[in-house]
């Protein structure tokens, strides 16, 4: 068998080197590549290797915006890069909070660290990895990546009913999962995913192409809009204050927010596959990485969008609570606490920086207390 394969390999190699004579009515060529072709391939590979070496250097990467990893998601690459910088700077990112835009604007790592220190007297480094439009499925995919690459000592998942709702297309909830690099990291092999994972040149190829065409916006770090929105710890502080958050939506209000919530919540039910994704995150708890599940605060006005008002929302809490206790994961609810003041909201479900500070301080204190009681080991290597 093996000698047969060797023979085939040798024959294939011979065919490649010597070529064959093709003789149809029109095409009359010898297929053997000449010296020029071999040299071109060799020089191209050398050039690519040299460029890869340059692309891996910090001095090359620093002035550029983070690569998007093949994603159409505007935040993913940026947050990954911020996380990289924080990991490099601190040596270890102790905790990472994952979730949707509610986490992105609602979790202030600095306030969390303060609340934690109040309870334990110890410093901790946290990062906000909330991604717009993320659902339980994409959060699970990102959880796997951050655990493999950054080894955090604590994983916090901010959850809300939208994580399990039937998806609608705008914004595309699968945008993170469709990212070739994310898909590759979940075990779905694609050439692009492999290249993105292994080659820095490939990651930065788009930047170079855009720079060569004088497109500096979103290519140079100093010109990137996101750079002014996100803090280095991943948090997106918002300063707007909403006044309508406790009221039902106005009849005939066709704003994106109202239409969006109406579409996903009016006949709310939870997708089993998204609940499975949540369970896959919870299973990390069994491998020694503490996982905490936190209900992201929502305003009273959000209940008006559910077909069955509070009972739909309670169904979400009950189901997630059941899974949490099944996997021995802490599930901290915020709804009964009602600690976010009316000036702490941007809209029905997003906190502004005032709300984020209150919520995050509370969360830090909770984690500190849980650690003190020996329920979790967030800050112990």
């Amino acid at each position, binding site marked *: 068998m093996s000698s047969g394969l060797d023979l085939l390999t040798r024959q294939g190699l011979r065919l490649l080197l010597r070529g064959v004579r093709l003789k149809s009515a029109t095409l009359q060529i010898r297929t053997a590549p000449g010296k020029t072709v071999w*040299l071109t391939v060799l020089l191209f590979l050398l050039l690519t290797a040299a460029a890869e070496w340059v692309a891996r250097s910090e001095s090359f990467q620093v002035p550029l915006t983070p690569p998007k990893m093949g994603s159409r998601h505007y935040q993913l690459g940026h947050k990954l890069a911020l996380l990289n910088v924080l990991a490099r700077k601190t040596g270890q990112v102790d905790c990472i909070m994952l979730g949707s835009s509610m986490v992105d604007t609602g979790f202030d790592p600095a306030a969390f660290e303060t609340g934690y220190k109040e309870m334990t007297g110890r410093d901790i480094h946290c990062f906000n990895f909330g991604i717009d439009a993320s659902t339980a499925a994409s959060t699970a995919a990102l959880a796997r990546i951050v655990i493999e690459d950054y080894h955090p000592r604590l994983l916090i998942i901010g959850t809300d009913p939208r994580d399990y709702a039937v998806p609608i297309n705008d914004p595309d909830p699968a945008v993170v999962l469709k990212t070739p690099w994310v898909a590759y990291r979940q075990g779905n092999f694609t050439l692009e995913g492999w290249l993105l994972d292994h080659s820095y040149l490939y990651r930065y190829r788009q930047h170079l*192409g855009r720079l060569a*065409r004088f497109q500096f916006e979103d290519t140079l770090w100093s010109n990137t809009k996101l750079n002014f929105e996100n803090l280095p710890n991943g948090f997106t502080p918002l300063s707007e204050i909403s006044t309508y958050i406790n009221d039902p939506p106005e009849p005939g209000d066709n704003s994106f927010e109202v239409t969006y919530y109406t579409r996903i919540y009016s006949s709310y039910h939870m997708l089993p596959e998204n609940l499975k994704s949540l369970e896959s995150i919870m299973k990390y708890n069994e491998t020694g990485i503490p996982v905490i599940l936190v209900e992201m605060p929502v305003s009273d006005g959000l209940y008006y969008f559910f077909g069955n008002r509070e009972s739909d929302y309670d169904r979400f809490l009950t189901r997630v609570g059941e899974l949490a206790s099944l996997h021995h994961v802490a599930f901290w609810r915020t709804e009964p606490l009602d600690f976010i003041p009316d000036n702490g909201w941007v809209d029905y479900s997003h906190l502004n920086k005032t709300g984020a500070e209150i919520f995050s301080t509370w969360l830090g204190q909770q984690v500190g207390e849980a650690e003190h009681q020996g329920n979790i080991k967030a800050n112990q290597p």
Partner: protein
Amino acid sequence: MTITSLNFFIFTALALAIYYLLPRRPQNIWLLFVSYVFLVSWDWTFAAVLGLVTSINFLLALRLRINDQGRRGLLWFGISLNVLTLIFFRGAGFFLPELEAMLASLGLSTQAGGLQILVPLGLSYYILQAISYLVDVYRCQLKAESDFVNFGLYLSYFPKLLAGPIERARAFLPKLAQPRLVDNRVIAQSVMLIFVGLVRKLIIADTLTASFLSDVFKIPQKYSPLELVVWLVIYAFAIYNDFAGYTDIVRGISGFFGIELSRNFWAPYFSRNFTEFWKRWHITLSEWLRDYIYFPLHRVLSRYKTGYGKLANLILPPLITMLVSGLWHGFYLNLLVWGGLQGLYLIVERIPAFWRPIVPPQHQPLWRQGLGMVVVFILVILAWAPFRWELPAALQLWEALLNWSDVVIRYRRMLIVLPLLLGSLLLDFIQYWSDDEFIFLKWPPLAKATCMAIVLFWIFILTAGNFEQPFVYQGF
């Protein structure tokens, strides 16, 4: 499906794979089919218009000569029909708003967005080919093609469909009747053409085009005279490399099918006079204009030997020819001015012919040749102003060029792209000096391989920028 896209590459590869398996006659049927599929990939109505134009011209040509007598009326009918088709589609932008206003005044409102007519892709090119075919048949320079497939392919052959070269039926149709041979030499030449074309288009032209600031074409007076000169020079090289690159690529692709297409450019910015410039710039269009507009006009006016007749013969043929060229590029006043200016250059150049024979540039002293190149280049780039800028902006640009009080360059990108201009000149110079388009094939393997590796690497980078510039001449 643009010709630098991956889709086009796959499409061509599939077309070739089947093409090589077929004998000659089915090869033509296959190519005709593939060409129409290519057109339908843009819009099916484009294919319908081309099919109609092809059928009408095919039938007309068969009836153009009866008992060895040309039917002049039928020829003019055919020419008029083709010209009117061109005017109808290209002029739609002018008459549709008028028509809409008229309908509205009659209480007949159109749908939201108004009336719209898409200009069929490649129309300006295949209409010229159809006219030349009818004239050649009428003049007995060509026998009317009796094979509809061959004639259909002459007008629709996909590598030249979008923007030429404008082939003559008398040169192209015999190629379709012959068996084709694609050997290693042809492959090497085709690959070289494609490489050179990609360098011109993706590396030089697209980068130069991207360097333009958005308001350069709207408010030229914002820039210093020196900057305007640099923008003009950049534009001159951008449009040249864009179109020359396109032609090289399609000629290379056609080479793989064993069908040689005409050269369209030959180092035009090394021209020593304007007559030479038009022998080097968009050669197939220039030759078409020469053979079907300039020469007929010249012949008619040559009958008048008096002073005024001679003067008319000096002025009218080049002027009318270049005005038609301007109109062919678009029904806009600025393009008419561009054509008029080019006509004027040719007229002025011919004035000395009144009192002494014209010495061909290659027989002139070197300093005269060099001076000629500089003068032609300067005047040609000045004429690019109304070609690209709308007329008021072009006039402002020319006006601003007269005021040299502010001699600065504030935009670094203008300086960054200057090496590309040198690259373009070097590419031309190497071919021009050796008088061999395929000179690069004679280079040592290491030199060829180094160039190809660098080009491949650079294209690998550039194609990631999501920056796809359409070919400028595809718009005509």
